[in-house]
């Protein structure tokens, strides 16, 4: 069935997707919040920038990441100055790439959720003595929970399915950057169709399960929401 190599790739993929999702929540939540609330002219450009990975071929993102995170690139210079070395061919590099690549899948559901909450619950909380952080944690977070669930699932699943970016900045190193999608690609390229099938079928089942969970939770919500 699955070789050790394949299992290592699965494990690595899950690790990557988990770390990425956590980081995406940390980075994406303030961005989504800002996008949902701001009236600044920067809203449109920032929104567009965040959404770029939706339309850009992943290889383009990967290529630019390879260049800017490389030793001569601006980010590469920075990470070297900070003593972190350069990011391509490292797990950390993949995390950075995945965070950028999956950003819209987290930011947009969150932004929608924040938009849907509106100003009123926050104003109510303010009149009930809750300060800005307090309001965020006790009102916004619970009310945006469905948005967070959607964002988490999409961010995680999208990272699992990521290929182009990893291909460009990963270097195909076992246990470090060889994720499932790359492994599948290798198998297909090497005409090892049986192995490719096992992993591909696994991915297919996983993706279906994720989307099923997403849709099921959505319809469940509708049912209990009606009164």
């Amino acid at each position: 069935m699955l070789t050790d190599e394949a299992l290592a790739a699965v494990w690595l993929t899950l690790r990557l997707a988990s770390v990425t999702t956590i980081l995406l929540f940390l980075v994406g939540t303030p961005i989504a919040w800002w996008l949902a609330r701001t009236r600044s002219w920067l809203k449109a450009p920032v929104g567009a920038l965040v959404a770029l990975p939706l339309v850009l071929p992943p290889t383009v993102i990967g290529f630019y990441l390879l260049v800017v995170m490389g030793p001569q690139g601006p980010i590469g210079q920075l990470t070297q100055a900070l003593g972190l070395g350069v990011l391509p061919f490292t797990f950390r590099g993949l995390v950075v790439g995945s965070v950028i690549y999956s950003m819209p899948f987290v930011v947009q559901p969150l932004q929608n959720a924040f938009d849907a909450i509106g100003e009123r619950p926050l104003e109510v909380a303010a009149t009930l003595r809750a300060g800005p952080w307090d309001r965020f944690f006790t009102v916004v977070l619970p009310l945006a929970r469905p948005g967070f669930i959607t964002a988490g699932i999409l961010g995680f699943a999208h990272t699992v399915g990521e290929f182009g970016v990893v291909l460009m900045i990963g270097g195909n190193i076992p246990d470090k950057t060889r994720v499932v999608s790359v492994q599948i690609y290798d198998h297909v390229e090497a005409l090892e169709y049986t192995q490719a099938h096992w992993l591909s079928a696994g991915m297919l089942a996983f993706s279906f399960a994720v989307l099923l969970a997403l849709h099921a939770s959505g319809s469940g919500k509708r049912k209990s929401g009606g009164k």
Partner: protein
Amino acid sequence: MQSIHARFRVAHDGFTLDVDLLLPGRGVSALFGASGSGKTTCLRAIAGLEHAPGGTLSVNGEVWQDDSRGLFVPTHQRPLGYVFQEASLFPHLSIRRNLEYGMRRVPERDRKVSLDHAVELLGIAPLLERMPDWLSGGEKQRVAIARALATSPRILLMDEPLAALDLARKQEILPYLERLHDELEIPLIYVSHAPDEVARLADHLVVLEQGRAVASGPLGETLARLDLPIRLGEDAGVVLEGEIAEIDQAWHLARVAFAGGSLWVRDSGVPIRQHVRVRILARDISIALEPHADSSILNVLPATVEELADDTHPALALVKLNAAGAPLVARITRRSAARLVLRQGLAVWAQIKAVALVG
């Protein structure tokens, strides 16, 4: 320093609010006006939900905003209670947790209103363990009021709390608001465009029009001003305060005694000595030079003409009467006024066709 002083100038999108209000430090002050008159903006500015640059606000001696000194206390640091038009309960919290939300954020030493008291005042004890989704509009609004009260506010602000409710729900809540009025020591600022609510609840009336306060004063006095009925239209009228002096069981009538005499109203079960308000609309008062014993009108009061003014329609005139100290306003035709030769100081009889007990 038991007063509220608010001076705001807010201008946005072609709308300007420009008010300088001095409100009593207790009782109910109504901000009355049509929609778009700026009453909600004014209330939001008092709450700090809207920052009116250059404004000043002090509440019973505490300064919450003075932009000349760069002082602006954010909403969450102002000890106020705010009730929005829609109840806006937190849907993810039970009624109890909704009520506790604000209270828990108030330091223990500042908690003067217990949760039980707030629950009891609004009669919501049976609802505590439910989720907001399962409450009716009226129940939600009562919870919202209790939630605001439970923070032991030093001022209570209400933005048309009844406007989103149907008549039956309004009737359900009004008695609770009256209780607040009677039992609370703190000032309440009540925004409304419904004259009946104002007549029932307010002690002090501010009339807003296009962002300006065109009148501000004690309710009875302000309602009796002749420049206001024009603005109030069909709802023009006065409110008198008195108490139930007598009940006529045979005819199911109650006599309300007030400074200038007494009036018979339908007995609605209000006990004797109870303090009540009656509202008399200008259109329900007619004027006679003689007391007519042969008419069906029950309430006829002796009065003197104080002032005459034109109404909006050229056929109508407004007459301010003084019934032994109680101000009344009558709306009659100008032809009648001419026929009776009404003038200041003339002794007349005010025939009152309808009196409403408003609380």
